């Protein structure tokens, strides 16, 4: 395709992305390299409905003068990336220099917020992504063989986990798995353990989040694979049938290769989405047992009175770096496909 035609076709999409994503990313990169100005503090008397106290406040005028002299803040280089809230380089140095063996190293590194979040994020990504894709593929195959009349409702019900806004979906499930909820009681009866609670221990909380993750992720894979199945060339399938290929063989040698590019795409999207897992943690009140990178960003930006933009920017960039590392196999594959095409 000539450059000019290409440009004409892609321009609107590129402009939108440059303005609303690329530009903010640049500002986020800049932000992550700076920390706030030194705040000039002063003590003042502070009176309200509950009496007077002496409190420290920011001397707004003096601080504003510092700010206008240097609007970006104080340059900190990669300092924010290496501090305790992120990669914690010096803390890890201390741990490595003085410890009681591997178990101690692991426990103490896990105690650092970034690594704690990273461990859950990675576990979630690597468990939920393949399971969700396999489940979605199996659903797509089954739905494809359902009679025409039933297809619509079956598709609708299969999509429900994705359709219901996570805000409410996780809230309702959260109450259903309560020890007094319908699922919680059912599990207690099933395992004959009246004290069983999915929310009290870390392993069970993780398990709950994984199951919820697969449940919400499967419909996406299902829809994409289902749409892909519609484009499987009928004549290839027919000739395979005439050759006496069993159903399994048809799936293995005709359908799966045909869905290859789509599977790459689904893997790409799902890896990325699962790596950014956030809503289930809040929805299931699981912060005590599981945090993710996106949750750290949220925690910095929702600060009670001071928002830590630099810290959030650094975590966001580390998230992007993580995604790129994670997706590199898929990217290499795309590159190969791309080169073959050219």
């Amino acid at each position, binding site marked *: 395709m000539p450059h000019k035609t290409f440009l004409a076709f892609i321009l609107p999409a590129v402009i939108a992305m440059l303005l609303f994503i690329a530009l903010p990313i640049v500002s986020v990169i800049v932000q992550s390299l700076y920390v706030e100005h030194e705040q000039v503090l002063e003590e003042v008397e502070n009176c309200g409905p509950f009496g007077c106290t002496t409190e420290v406040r920011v001397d707004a005028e003096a601080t504003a003068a510092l700010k206008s002299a240097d609007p970006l803040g104080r340059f900190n280089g990669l300092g924010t990336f290496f501090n305790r809230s992120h990669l914690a380089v010096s803390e890890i140095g201390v741990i490595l220099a003085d410890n009681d063996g591997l178990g101690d190293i692991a426990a103490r590194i896990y105690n650092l917020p970034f690594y704690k979040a990273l461990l859950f994020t990675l576990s979630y990504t690597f468990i939920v992504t393949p399971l969700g894709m396999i489940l979605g593929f199996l659903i797509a195959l089954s739905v494809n063989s359902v009679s025409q009349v039933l297809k619509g409702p079956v598709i609708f019900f299969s999509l429900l986990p994705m359709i219901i806004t996570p805000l409410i979906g996780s809230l309702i499930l959260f109450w259903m798995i309560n020890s007094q909820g319908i699922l919680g009681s059912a599990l207690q009866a099933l395992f004959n353990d009246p004290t069983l609670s999915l929310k009290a221990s870390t392993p069970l909380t993780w398990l709950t989040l994984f199951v919820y993750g697969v449940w919400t992720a499967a419909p996406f894979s299902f829809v994409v694979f289902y749409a892909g199945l519609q484009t499987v060339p009928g004549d290839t399938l027919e000739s395979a049938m005439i050759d*006496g290929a069993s159903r399994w063989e048809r799936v293995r040698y005709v359908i799966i290769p045909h869905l290859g590019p789509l599977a790459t795409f689904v893997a790409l999207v799902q890896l990325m989405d699962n790596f950014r897992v956030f809503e289930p943690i809040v929805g299931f009140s699981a912060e005590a047992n599981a945090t993710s990178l996106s949750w750290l960003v949220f925690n910095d930006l929702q600060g009670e009175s001071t928002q830590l933009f630099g810290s959030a920017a650094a975590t966001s960039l580390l998230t992007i770096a993580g995604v790129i590392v994670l997706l590199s196999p898929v990217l290499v594959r795309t590159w190969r496909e791309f080169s073959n095409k050219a």
Partner: protein
Amino acid sequence: MSGTSMIARRRSRTLATVSTLFLITWLIVAAFPFLWTVWGSFKVESDFFSRESWLNALFGVYTEMQTGAPFTGDGYYGAWITRDFWRAVVNTAIVTLCVTVISLTIGTLGGYALARSGHRYAFWILIAALVFRAMPHITLVSGYLLPFFELNIWGHLATSIVVLVAINQPFTLWMLHSFFLSIPKDLDESAMVDGCTRFQAFRWVVIPVMWPGVITTGLFSFLLAYNDFAVTAMLLSQDNQTMVPKISSFLGSIQEQGNVMFAVAAVVSATAPLFLLVMFFQRQIVSGLTAGAVKG
């Protein structure tokens, strides 16, 4: 028919049974929480969200006590009449429709170009789009606030639509790109040999075959706009609020009691129109199939 095919047919019958059983299990797992919610939306909060026993949700002990009947429409009344949920529905309809249409229009053009261009920069655009998509939305949105206030475009539906389209573009491009790849190149090339311009080939030859892809991508654009919370909660003023932030406002906050049943009723009523939409979408996929078969 030979003997082997008889065996194959029997085997495929077992397989069919297994696949039906599997599907039924899945449907129960997928739909049960929603059906439970539909049922519960006609109860009061202390029944549906009971801390005593889930049986309360079934029999409506407190619903009976508080309203005198085992079912109540209070949640629906509260959400729709008291708290003007319909306004959020109208806003959502505008936002989702615009986001879907705009996303698909610029996305199909871009995705097609990316799939048909062999130049190296096309690959890098795809990679850049991927990196863009990795950015947590909440970071992007908190960066928008000050410039949007300064430009006086904060709070309007149009702003949110444009932002959602942009945020959604990497996904749309990737998805449509993958779909276009599965359509043979000869198709549009032969059309161009027949005298079509590139755009005509795209519009009249490729797009008709692409319906399953376009509709599927459209469904996801739709759901993204429909379920979005990060963008719409931060960038829309109260009058322009869409459904999800509105529902979240029913939930209350740390120190304040919300009205959770309003939220539950709102979610149930918001899901009903989607049923029609999915039925429609499903038929389009099939029509795409026939279109594809004709060309075969």
